[in-house]
Every structure is written in C-alpha cells, then in structure tokens.
C-alpha cells in the first residue's frame, strides 16, 4: 500500500468528520462502518467529497475492501501517486 503522509491523512479526516459522530477519535485504525456508522448512502457522499477535494476518481468497486480510515487514505494516496 502507498505510504500516507500526515497532511493527507489530516485532509481526509477533515472530510470524514462531517459524516462521523462527534467525539470519535480518528486514527488509521478507525473502522469506517463500525466506528463511524458510515452507511452506503453516506459513503457515496463522502467519496464525492474526496473526489472533489483531491480531483480524482475513486473506483467504487474497491470500497468494499476498505475497512479502516487508514485503508481509505491508502487508496487515495495510491490514486494521487498514480496520476
């Protein structure tokens, strides 16, 4: 998996916070569905925010492989690097 630098992770957390319940600490190990209660509709909303923020397309078929915030950041880092 592509290395994720702190700035990128912080950027993603800023977007994720809109969808996460208050008071949950965001770490790379935070689970997207279990800890943050991001359902399939909110997931699409979040992906749109990420796409717009970083100017990339997220392959939605890969979302089911992402369990944690770290997985998500890794995917974004990979897409950014691959450009």
């Amino acid at each position, binding site marked *: 998996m592509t290395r994720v630098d702190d700035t990128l992770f912080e950027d993603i957390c800023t977007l994720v916070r809109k969808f996460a319940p208050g008071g949950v600490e965001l770490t790379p190990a935070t689970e997207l*569905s*279990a800890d943050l209660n991001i*359902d399939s509709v909110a997931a*699409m909303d979040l992906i*749109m925010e990420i796409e717009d923020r970083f100017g990339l397309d997220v392959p*939605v*078929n890969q979302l*089911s492989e992402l369990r944690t915030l770290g997985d998500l950041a890794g995917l974004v880092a990979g897409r950014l690097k691959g450009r």
Partner: protein
Amino acid sequence: MVVATPTTNRVLPFRTGGFATLAQGLDYAARGETGCNFYSPRGELEVALSYRELRERALDLAARLPSARLRRGDRVAIVAETTPDFLIFFFACQYAGMIPVPLPLCVNFGGREAYAGRLHGMLMAAGARAAVGPDDLVDALRIAAARTAVAQVGTPAEFYALPTSLAALQPLHAHEPCYIQYSSGSTSFPRGVLVTQQAIAANARAIAEEGIALRPGDRCVSWLPLYHDMGLVGCCLTPVMTQITVDYLASTSFARRPLVWLKLMSGNRGTISFAPTFGFELCARRAANASLDGLDLRHWRVAGIGGEMIRPAALDEFAQRFAGAGFDPAAFVPSYGLAEATLAVTFAPLGKGVRLDVVERGDALERGRRAVPVAAETGRRTRAFVRCGQAMPGYAVEIRDERNRPLPDRRIGRVCIQGPSLMTGYYRNPEATAAVTTVDGWLDTGDLGYLVDGELIVTGRNKDLIIFSGRNIWPQDIEWAVEQVPGVRRNDVAAFAVTGDDDREKVVVVVEVRGGLDADGLSALRREIAATVHRVAGIDAEIVLAPPRSLHFTTSGKLSRAAARQSYLEGGIRDLGDTAAVEPTAGTDEPPRLAAAG
C-alpha cells in the same frame, strides 16, 4: 469524440410489439441508429453503443461462449455493472441460448466478505456454469464461485478472447426462459425469479403501450441498477424492445452526484425516467443550494415512481425544488410492480401527477382494515396513501382476505395479481413458489392494500422484507450475522423495519441479552452488533438490547418478526441500557398495525 446515439431512428418505423423474444427485439432495433450511452460519474459521455453495435458484439461473443465449455440452457452469471459489457453478455446469452443471471454490486465499506457470501448463494441456487465480472470484482467472484458448479470465472476481456466456435447459434425461443433475477430472498436461500421470453415480451409491450404510451421522440435516462427489475426491465429491456435510446448513469455515480441525473435529462432532452421515492429525495436534498442555471426539465413527461412505498411529501419537495427548471409535477406517474410479475402491473394515469387517497386513521384502518375516506387531510388523524392506478389491460388486481376471498373496495387485504407476465416460479424452488401462489393460481404479492374504483393503493408490506433506501434487505441476513457476535445466541435476534417520521423506514434489531452485563459490557456489545449490521447490510440500525423473553415465537417455533415489531411499536420491548422502559415516541407517524396479522 464520442457522439451519443440519436433519440429517433431516421427511417426504421417505431414498433412497440410483435417480438416473441428479446433477441428478435434487438434484431429489429439494430436496423436503426438508436442505442445506449454510458456516462462518467461527472456526466461526461464515455461510450455510445448503438443497438446495431450491441447486436454485433453480442453475436460475436455468443459464438465464443461454447469455447468456455458452455452449452445451451446453461446459466451464465453476470455482475451487473452499468457498462456496455453487461448488455453485451446479457444479449450474447440470448443469442447463444443460455440464461443470464444478473448479480448485484457492493459498495459498503468493509463489505467484501459478506458480498462474496451473497454471490456464492446466488451462484449455487442458479446452478451457474460461468461467471463474469469487472477486473476489480473478479477476485470476489472467484471466491464466491469456489465449491459451486461454476467452471469458468473471468473478466469480460477473457471471454471476448475465447476462440470462436463454428456451431450455429440457437437463440432462446419464444417458449423458453429469458433470465433469472435474484433480487429477493436471503443470502442462504436466495429466490431467483425465472422470467420467460413470453413474460418479458408481454410486460415490455404493456409498459410501452398502456403504461407510459411510448412514442417516437421519447428518450430514457436511467441510473437504476441493472440487477433490479425496475432498472433491468423498465429502463433497459423495454427500451431495446421499443428502439428507445437510453442514457445510463451508474447507480453509484448517481448516489455521489444526483444532479448529474437531471443534467442528463436536461442536456439530452430526456422524456422518461423512473426512480424510487428516495431517488427524488436524494436529488432534492443534495441540490438544496445548487444552481439551476441551464437546467431544463420541461421535456420530462414521465417521472415514474415505484420500487418502494411512495412518499408524497418527498416528491412534493422535489417538484418544488425543480419547478424553476421547468419540472412539471403532473409528470409524476406512480406505479406498482414486482419482479415476480417481470416488472409492472399498474400505472397511474399519465399527466395527472401524484393523486392521494386520504383516509381516517385509527381503529377503522388499524383494526377494521377499512380505508374510510375523509374530505381533507387533518394532520395526525388522517393518513394519505398514493393511488397507483388500475391494472394494465390483460392484468388483474384483487384484494383477498386470509381465506383467499375477494374483498370489496376500501377493504384492506392481500394484494393478489394475475397477468401475462407472471413468473412461472422461483428457479428450482417449488416450496417458495407455492408459498406465493394462491389455490386458484394468482400471485400473492406479499403486499397489503385496497382498491378504489379499480385503482390499487398499497398500504404496506405483509412480508418481512425490509426495503431501505430502495434496497431490499432480508431480515434473516442481519439476524444470522448478529447471531455470530460473541455473547449472542441463536434465535435471540429479530430484525424488522418500522416507519418513522416522513414515512421513512428505520431498521430495528432487537437482541435478547442473557447474563448480567454492566453498562460498559452493554455498550461494547451494542457497538459490536451495530458494526456487524453495517458490514452485512450497510445500514445504520437501532440496536435494542432486551431482556430474555422479549421476542415472540410462533407455535411451530419460528420467530415472529411481526409480533416483535408490534411489541416494539407499543413500547413493550425494554432496552437494558435504559434506566426506564422505552416509551413509544408520541405522535410519530406509525403505519397501520396490520403487519402483525400477517
């Protein structure tokens, strides 16, 4: 530059019927210039595939399929992404005499394992011999195909590269099956609706001629998934059978940027599009602050609504939000249908919009099962239902009581239907088929409703199926997953949906907890269960941790979800995490308490 297919054919006469099979319908459409167009998540045209080209590519692939050791009649499972590949494989099967089985997609975070399990169940039930899926899902498909009859799993490119066989093609005949649709049933016991060529020909023709009065100049825009009947039959196969051009947006693209739907309607002068209520709702919500500049929806003449209970307030909101873009609320066309009837059964009259039937709430409705009309809505004492129109010619709707006797107008009972496109049965599942067939051969839809002047009004579902944001969720899938959580025992879980404010569905999972857990233990368990529900169903459910004996079982020992739901609504189920018993929320818009009788 890619150029979209035109709305009308230059010379080829418009035809809505007279095709005995899907292949014949495509053969005819291929003589014109219309076809289908595929758009990116941001609404740029990526691929235009005329029906002529679709036919050529399907015929080419059909001749290669025997090289995958596939024979006539074999089931070919196709992951139903909204792509040209899906259509090419679907129609290649038609030409090769094989039966396509569309498979669903999965976009839940962390849901890959549950998804593979779901696909495995479908591949088993269909006895599929081959399975095809896009590059980034083919691994899940391979896992799903382990220990099944599937001999060949691959990406579209792998199948396109097979050598061509010299044997003559034998397309599916008029008396043969057309496809199998797995949109109902649970993971372990999926129920596949076997749709015949006769059924699709009859339903497509009825939809085109009676339902929405298709005419030259119509153009369809669709973001509906192709693994559901409304997307597959309504917005893909019916257009092929009527040479109508379709502009496709993937469901996941719509969910990200719902306004792209309207931009395509506007830019392509779309006249027809269908969606469940939640689609209109999502669009209105996300567009709250968006500019309507350049958006022109004046050509939209059929804004079809189906797929779940129709919620008039959400449609109102959509109509108001887009009035400035020329959206005409009279374009709304409520409809009723189900996969077991191929798709459509009733359509409300065109050009009349959403028409309501307002009835008295209270004992008459909830216990007497009578829908007593009132002059006007008066808030909490009335309930407004949507009139879904009469059965199309050739179809019939009756409301029956528990003993299968027809009920008069305004009496609520089981919605039973008859018509030329009913399934012949669930594939290889005579028990499930018998369970939905009345002694006199009608289909019991599992829905509850009543008739007024021949018009169907649906009031709720009799069955336990949960429909959440347009998705069908089988409660067993949630229950079985939750039963695997450490500390939860078998048969101690019930999942059901209740209608909250605004007719929106909320999923409740009641779990009986044995043994003394302290507050920390309870909240850890609650968290674990919520996470499990998320992984298996991708939804946010209310988790109720209840003391033993909160759930009800039938005399044969089967869990009664209806009774659990009733008890929950009446405040009879206590949550151990609360200091006081949970009271039912006063004044919420609860549905009629009829489901408990089902």
